[in-house]
C-alpha cells in the first residue's frame, strides 16, 4: 500500500511514531505510539500541506480480552484538502493516560471529558477532567465491556 502524505510527513518528523496503518473501507487510519499524539496532532494541524483543521471526534473502544485492550480513536478532517484521517492509540493499562488535545482544539475539552466519563481514559493536561454525561459519584465507566448492562446506580430510588 502506498503511504499517504500525512503518513510520510509524520514518519519524516517523528520516525518512531507510526506503528501501523491501514485504509480499510477507504478510511485512512494510522496507529500511533501513545506518547506522540500531541506532537503529531500539532503537525497535522499546522503543516501547510496537511491542514487537518477539524477535530471531528474523540472516542475509545474497549476490546476486552484482546491485548492491547483499549483504543483511543481520533477523527480529523482537513477542509482545504477535503480529506479525513483516523488516528488510533493503543494501551493495555487499566486506566490509559494520553496527552490532551485541548491546547490545539477547544472542542477536545468536552470530547475528552466524555471519553473519560464513559471509558475512564485519563487525559493529561486537560483543564477540567470531570464527568459530563453521568453525575459526580458515579462508580465505574459504563461503556467498558466489563460493566454489566443491567447494573443500576440510581441517585434516588431502590439500589441494586
Amino acid at each position: 500500500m502506498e503511504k499517504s502524505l500525512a503518513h510520510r510527513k509524520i514518519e519524516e518528523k517523528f520516525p518512531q511514531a507510526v506503528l501501523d496503518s491501514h485504509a480499510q473501507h477507504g478510511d485512512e487510519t494510522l496507529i500511533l505510539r501513545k506518547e506522540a499524539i500531541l506532537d503529531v496532532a500539532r503537525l497535522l494541524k499546522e503543516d501547510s500541506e496537511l491542514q487537518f483543521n477539524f477535530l471531528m471526534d474523540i472516542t475509545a473502544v474497549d476490546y476486552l480480552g484482546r491485548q492491547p485492550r483499549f483504543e483511543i480513536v481520533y477523527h480529523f478532517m482537513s477542509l482545504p484538502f477535503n480529506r479525513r484521517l483516523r488516528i488510533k492509540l493503543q494501551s493495555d493499562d487499566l486506566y490509559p493516560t494520553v496527552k490532551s488535545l485541548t491546547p490545539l482544539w477547544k472542542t477536545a475539552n468536552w470530547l475528552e471529558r466524555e471519553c473519560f466519563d464513559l471509558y475512564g481514559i485519563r487525559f493529561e493536561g486537560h483543564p477540567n477532567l470531570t464527568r459530563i454525561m453521568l453525575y459526580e459519584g458515579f462508580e465505574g465507566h459504563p461503556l467498558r465491556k466489563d460493566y454489566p448492562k443491567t447494573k443500576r446506580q440510581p441517585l434516588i430510588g431502590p439500589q441494586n
Partner: protein
Amino acid sequence: MDTKTASPEKEFFFTATEPEFRTQEMLLNMGPSHPAMHGIVKIAVKLQGELVVDADIEIGYLHRAFEKSCEACTWNQAIIYTDRLNYVSPIINNVGYCMAVEKLLGVEIPPRGQYIRTLLCEVSRVADHLTCVAAAAMELGAMTVFLYMMKGREYLYELLEDFCGARVTTTAVRVGGQPADLPEGWTEKLTRAIKEVRVILKECHALLTCNRIFYDRVRGTGVMKADDAMNWGFTGPCLRAAGVDYDVRKYFPYLVYDQVDWAIPVGTQGDNYDRYLVRMEEMEQSCRILEQCAKKIPNGPHSVQDKRIMLPDKKDTYGNIEGLMNHFKLIMHGHGIRVPVGEAYQAVEAGNGELGFYVVSYPIEGEEKDGCASRPWKARCRPPCFHFVAALPDMIKGDMVADVIPTFGSINMIGGELDR
C-alpha cells in the same frame, strides 16, 4: 408594521456594553427544566446587571446509554435507537447508521433506494429547520411564525407517515436498503407539500427577515466567527453562517447529492441572524433537491438483492418455504446479518451538521462465525450539536441575559442527540 420599509442595513439596535456602575454578581440557573431549554440542559450564568460575564453548561440529563444499548442488540435492532438521537429528523440518523454498516459490509444499495433515501433525508431536513426556526422565533414572541411553520412541518410529517406509518420515530431505513418502496402517488403529494412549504417560507420571510424587532434581537448576538467555529468543531448551518462552506453533501458526497443541482448558502457574520438566514435558504435548496430527485427517480429494486442482508418480501415469507427460512435466518437469535470484522466511519449531513457514525465490528466470544459479528461491538455517534453546546459559553459571554434565549434557540440543541 410595514415590513418592507424597515431596512436591516441601518444598525441602530442596542448593543451590550460595559455597565456604568458595577453591582454584585449574581448566579442564575437557567434550567435544567425550563421551557426555553428545549429538552433538559442547565445553563448557569453569572450576571453583572443584565450582562452575562460567565456561563457554565451542565448536560447529561437525557443520557440513556445509546452506545451500550446498541452493543446489546443486532445490527438492524440498533436502528431503533438511532431514531431517538435527533428526534426531529430521525431518518437522517437511520441513514447515517445504515450507511456505516453497509460500508462495513461492502455493499452499495441500488439507485432507486439511494433516491428514496435522499428524498426522505431532505424532507426530514426541511422539517428539522422548520422546527428550529419556529421554536427560536416563538421564543422571541413570534407566535404566528411558529404556527405557520408547524403547519408546514405537518405536510412533511404526513409524507413520512405515508411512507412508514410513523411521524417521529420512523425506523424507515434498513441495513441494505429500504424496507418498502414509495407508496403510490407519493411524489405528487410531495410536489404539493413543497408548494405549501414555499408559501410558508415566503410568509415567514415577510414576517421575520426585515422585522425590526426580530432583527434587533438576533443581529450581532451569539457571534461565532469562522476561525473559532472551526476550532470548536462546528459543522452545519452554524458553521456556514460564519462563512465556511463546509457541507458533507458537497465535500464528501454520498447518496445522490452529486447528481442534483443545488447550492450551499453561507453567511458572513456568524451571528443568530445569519444562522436564521442560512436555515431559511437551506430549506429552499432542499426543496430544489426534492423536486429534482422526484423527477429523476429511476425504477428498479430499492434494496440490495442479497438474501443474507435483506428480509424477503412478506408474500414470500408467508407464501413459500424458502422465504420463510430466509426470514427466520435473519430474525432468530444468534442469526441475523453477519458483518465482517472491521471499522468504518460514515458522515452524513444532518439538520445540525456532520453526523458521524463510527461503527466497529469485532468477533464476540461464543457468537463468532467466520470472522463475522452479529452485533455491533461499538456504535459511536458523533453528534453535531454536542460541539455547539460546548461552545455556548463563548457565544453568550458579553451578551445580555435576554440574548441567551435566541442564541440557544439558533444552535438547535437536540437533547436526544446531545446526551445520547
